[in-house]
């Protein structure tokens, strides 16, 4: 890599912020930084897509600007709004003082409420813009996003066009509730975050749950990997693993056994059918876990 940050540097820096990332993810982040292109992250729920942006902001020492998408999100909530109340008060003030009010007086920065996208564009230093769960916003919003993402500029009719001084690093996450529009995908680099390997998952547990003993972490990681190959309706992600590990440490367990699996299965599975299935196959899962690290 011929650029400021190498893969190793990124990995190391992210590890310091307790995010264990693999080569591929580190590489894509590097590439995205170098090419100044948005990065589209997809993956099963709970593999740490949003976390990437948070940690990256810390690593780069940049401000994190987060835009959480939801249905019905529109331009006003993402770009800017005029502070009408304040403008009205100002007009009133002019009136009382007997001065004439010009439009330029009330359409200034003072009366502008910047929303995440405008904040990212106007940011005086490089910022990390996280557009979270873009697939839960409407398709219209997606096409609106295109202008911002390709040119990093925002047009306010009363004030003119504002162009980004520093292109922000844009991280877009999607859970694939619906397929994203091609035009949006085309403007981004793409990375799919897989479930971590057992070794990496163990590292993550050790990093995130202080005070957990190594043997337990290893056992948990060993159970998770084969579990994800099974046909559950909603497979447990890393977030669930961490919840479970936390629960086991609170219970002061040194070992995972069938009884404790029954008690804590609510940490891993959120559907009745999945819980039942997990309980049925727990003995098998424990058995399999022993061989995971030997392979």
């Amino acid at each position, binding site marked *: *890599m011929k650029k400021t940050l190498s893969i190793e540097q990124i990995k190391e820096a992210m590890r310091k912020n307790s995010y264990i990332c693999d080569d591929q993810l580190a590489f894509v982040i590097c590439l995205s930084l170098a090419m100044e292109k948005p990065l589209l992250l997809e993956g099963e729920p709970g593999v740490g897509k949003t976390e990437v942006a948070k940690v990256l902001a810390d690593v780069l020492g940049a401000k994190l600007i987060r835009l959480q998408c939801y249905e019905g999100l529109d331009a006003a909530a993402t770009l800017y709004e005029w502070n009408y109340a304040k403008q009205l008060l100002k007009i009133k003030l002019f009136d009382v003082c007997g001065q004439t009010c010009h439009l330029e007086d009330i359409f200034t920065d003072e009366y502008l409420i910047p929303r995440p996208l405008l904040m990212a564009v106007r940011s005086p230093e490089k910022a990390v813009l996280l557009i979270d769960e873009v697939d839960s916003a409407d398709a219209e919003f997606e096409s609106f996003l295109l202008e911002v993402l390709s040119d990093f500029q925002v047009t306010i009719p009363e004030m003119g066009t504002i162009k980004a001084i520093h292109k922000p690093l844009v991280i877009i996450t999607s859970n694939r509730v619906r397929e994203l529009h091609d035009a949006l995908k*085309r403007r981004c*680099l793409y990375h799919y975050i897989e479930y971590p390997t057992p070794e990496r998952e163990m590292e993550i547990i050790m990093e995130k749950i202080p005070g957990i003993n190594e043997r337990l972490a290893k056992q948990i990681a060993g159970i998770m990997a084969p579990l994800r190959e099974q046909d559950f*309706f909603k497979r447990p992600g890393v977030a669930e693993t961490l919840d479970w590990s936390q629960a086991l440490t609170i219970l002061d367990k040194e070992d995972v056994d069938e009884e404790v699996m029954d008690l804590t299965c609510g940490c891993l599975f959120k559907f009745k059918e999945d819980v039942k299935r997990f309980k049925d196959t727990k003995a098998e899962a424990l058995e399999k876990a022993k061989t995971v690290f030997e392979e």
Partner: protein
Amino acid sequence: MAHFIPAQFLTEIDFQVYAHNLIERTLLFADLLRKNRVPVHTAKELDAIAALQYVDISKLSEFYMALKATMLVSNKHFPIFDQLFTQFWSGRGNASLPGGDTSGVPVQKQNTKDKQRGPEKSAEERQGSANDGKDSQEGAKVLLQSDSKEQGNSSDETSLPTYSLIETLREKDFEDIQPSEFVGFDELFKSLRINDKEKRGRRFKSSKTGKIIDIPKSIRQSRQKGGEIIKIFTKDRKPRHAKLVLIADVSASMDIYSTFLIKFIYELQKYVRDAETFVFSTQLKRITDILSHRSIGTALSLLSQSVLFWSGGTDIGGSFREFNNSYGGKLRKRNRILVILSDGWDTGDIETLKKQMEIFKKGFKKIIWLNPNLKYDSYQPLCMGMAASMPYIDYFLPCHNLKTLEAFIEIVKKI
């Protein structure tokens, strides 16, 4: 999911040998991906080439990841990308592949002319999209010039087999599908969807994003504000759902197809509201509830436990009568489409069948009959059951591979 590291199957040396005039070969590779139904847009091609400036192209792994991150837009294309990458950049047309899961897949070879046209076409496209990334184009130009010295000996190396894995799988008869191909197949099944938001009906419902102003509601709501309209309410056209009633034949003669068709119906039922599913051979059974299970594995195993007449004989007329008597009153509506999946081989009473079909015709909006035997060009609906039902059918369609099922979905959308 197992991690695929191409370096295991493709050595650095292989890569060095075949990786000269990189730009041209990258474009060729994009072309190869496109031929395999991986959508690689021109802008993505430019990205890929722009990315080459930032990576250490002497390292295979970096090169691989750069292409992967820039060219692809979905993880469902990862396996085919990995496969093609190994084959293309090792220069070995038939390199042995990782894992055994692709062993049964036939390989389609196309003639070399096709591929030699590749780079020219890409180059044209590249010029076409001028404003979409000028920097990267310049970067590409510089690299192209440095490569041009080597172009003399490159022509004979562009001959590579083109694979069309997905395409073959789509057109493959369910009869010939190997168990090893099931995985890819399930993925394809998931892509068959009826997007019911697409079609808009005549009725309205209130909607925040709607463009039409709902005057009555706005006025009604204004009354509590003393008659001043403060908020304007909008409405939008209500989406029209395709309402389906599916009756599938699971008798012995349909054995090869029924598993696939049930899977198809399972996916269909997930995305179509108010779909009702029945199976029959000599009796009829409603399986809507079984198929609404979240996991297809559970659904199928429950199905095999509860449907005892699977692979039995066939009594189409009798089963239809049972349907009309028990469920007809509720389900026979003019806004529903009846879909019958059967080959029409019948041992029951023909007169009963005719009578039931007549009731169907009167009760349903449209009747679609899917018959796997329609794949034979010379097929004539001669068997008694089929011949008797023909006059009542609106659409008579084949259903022996994915392509025909896609066609069926298109027709349902249009009705």
